[in-house]
């Protein structure tokens, strides 16, 4: 519960996730508690295999949890059917992946239109909103280019446009700058930061680059499937300096 009595936007309680069975079983999450309020900008950090991506996928309703509970706006997600999860994704969540995951041989405009199409918007609305979203990420004039004709940074911008075109409550970004050089990474980060501050979109971002994490207001550290630290960015920075 947050201070104003409303349920938190995202609330994980004692969530575990185990892959495989028996001897080969691997526990990716060993019981985590995490709650995120509306408007937050959370960076999730941790070494490879620490469970940060798994947590991200569970938050994004892309993966199921093994035990514990996950409430999104008070709704128990673990009880939802696959279709209900899909509806939740299409209405409230936007995804940005490290590998962009755009449809191949498909124009930027059609890629951005896709979520609207699944929401049943009319062709005119789709085109208008998609153009707006592309303009928001600075890609006006690139509507008809396919992903093969765009640079990595541009592809990630198209992916961000696709994620925000439905005006989601939460933007989930899994290492959005992992495949980009420093300059492009900085631009993408500024874009995400702006979406958070200007539009109030809640951002949860997995990254392993401290520079990028520093732009968030809160940093959550994962180690071995547990949350090792959860602090505001300034505290985290202070901590990092102290360690150094």
């Amino acid at each position, binding site marked *: 519960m947050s201070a104003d009595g409303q349920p938190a936007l995202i609330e994980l309680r004692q969530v575990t996730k185990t892959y495989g069975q028996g001897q080969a079983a691997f526990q990716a999450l060993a019981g985590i508690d995490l709650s995120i309020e509306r408007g937050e900008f959370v960076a999730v950090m941790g070494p490879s295999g620490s469970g940060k991506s798994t947590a991200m996928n569970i938050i994004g309703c892309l993966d199921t949890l093994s035990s514990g509970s996950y409430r999104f706006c008070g709704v128990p997600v673990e009880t939802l059917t696959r279709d209900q999860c899909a509806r939740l994704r299409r209405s409230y969540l936007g995804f940005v992946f490290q590998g962009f*995951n755009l449809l191949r041989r498909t124009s930027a405009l059609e890629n951005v239109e896709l979520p609207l199409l*699944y*929401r049943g918007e009319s062709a005119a609305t789709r085109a208008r909103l998609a153009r707006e979203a592309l303009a928001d990420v600075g890609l006006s004039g690139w509507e008809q280019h396919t992903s093969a004709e765009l640079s990595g940074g541009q592809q990630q911008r198209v992916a961000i446009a696709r994620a925000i075109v439905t005006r989601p409550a939460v933007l989930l970004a899994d290492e959005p700058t992992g495949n980009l050089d420093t300059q492009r990474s900085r631009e993408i980060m500024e874009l995400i930061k702006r979406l958070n501050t200007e539009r109030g979109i809640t951002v949860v971002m997995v990254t392993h680059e401290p520079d990028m994490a520093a732009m968030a207001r809160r940093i959550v550290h994962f180690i071995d499937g547990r949350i090792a630290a959860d602090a505001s960015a300034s505290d985290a920075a202070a901590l990092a300096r102290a360690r150094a």
Partner: protein
Amino acid sequence: MLWNTLLLAAREIRRNLMRSALTMLGIVIGVAAVVTMVTLGNGATASVAAQIASLGSNLILVMPGQRMGRPTSGSVAPNLRLSDADAIDTQITGVERVSPVVSKSVTAVVGAKNWKTSVTGAGNTYLGVARWELVNGREFSEAEERGGKSVCIIGDRVRRELFGSSDPLGSELRLQSFSCQVIGLLKAKGQGSMGNDQDDFVLIPLRTAQRRLAGNTDVNMVMVSARDGASTERIKERITLLMRERRNVREGQDDNFNVLDTKQISDTLSGTMQILTLLLGAVAAVSLLVGGIGIMNIMLVSVTERTREVGIRLAIGALEREVLLQFLVEAVTLSAVGGLLGILLATVASITLSQFMDLPYSFDVGINLLAFVFSAAIGVAFGYTPAKRAARLNPIEALRHE
């Protein structure tokens, strides 16, 4: 939702033109091969059946010689005589008409044109027994037959080769050392069951042939037609007995003549046709299979790409059934369009080849439907199954698919 799904499917087909075209090609070739081969096989069977029918079902042929397939006993079998034909006509019940026949290969000449053809010496009864009709002119008169006059009735092929477009009636036709007047023209029958041209012959009176061409009174063959309802088996038995007696074949000795009926001929031919049709069917089935494997290959090769696509669509909020429906629509569209193109191609090919091979063409609904359904089933199954498997995964697993 349906409209959007159609839109998505159409976009996907357009975007992956190569994959779509190859999938369709597999179906097109499979369907076209099967349909064309079976249609041509049907045409050939129908054509043979028509030829057998044109021969008449009640025809019996008596020819000198050892029974087919047995080694000769050394002596040459004597020819048949005119009196043998008379004996069959008068002594055997159930016989309708008897036509003794002399035949010889001769070059026919008209003006500067010549044409190697076969001359049949027989009476008017031959026309009835062998089911020939006149399109022009008249039959032989009794006087012409008895007197061995120099008149002839010609087949359509001979008319085409020697007279072209001019009217042959009344013209003179030179056969070997004598000339005869064309008095009749036969209706064309077309290709015979052995691939021969049935219309390529000249009919002259029996006596004329014996006197002017053979120089003896022998007969090469006696054609006998049975009365309607009479058993050809019984007639054959009686003819065999009669001929053994007349040709002094002792008991225990083999016949030195053959008695055949059209049923035997048609049995032999339809047996051959069945084998041919089976062979064609087998070849067609193989090509359908190869087409099917082609489809499977294309579809399976693109599984990885398609699995990721399913993952992307699910992640951005598509329902499982929306994704599945889209893939199903894609597979059905490609298969159906490919199948229809295949049928179209097969129809064009069958009509062209039928004309070229002089076979009757008929549209066989059954085989078209069968080939279409089979190919379409392969197309749909292999287009849809990978998508179905992918859509069951968690979106994140589908996205990670390598």
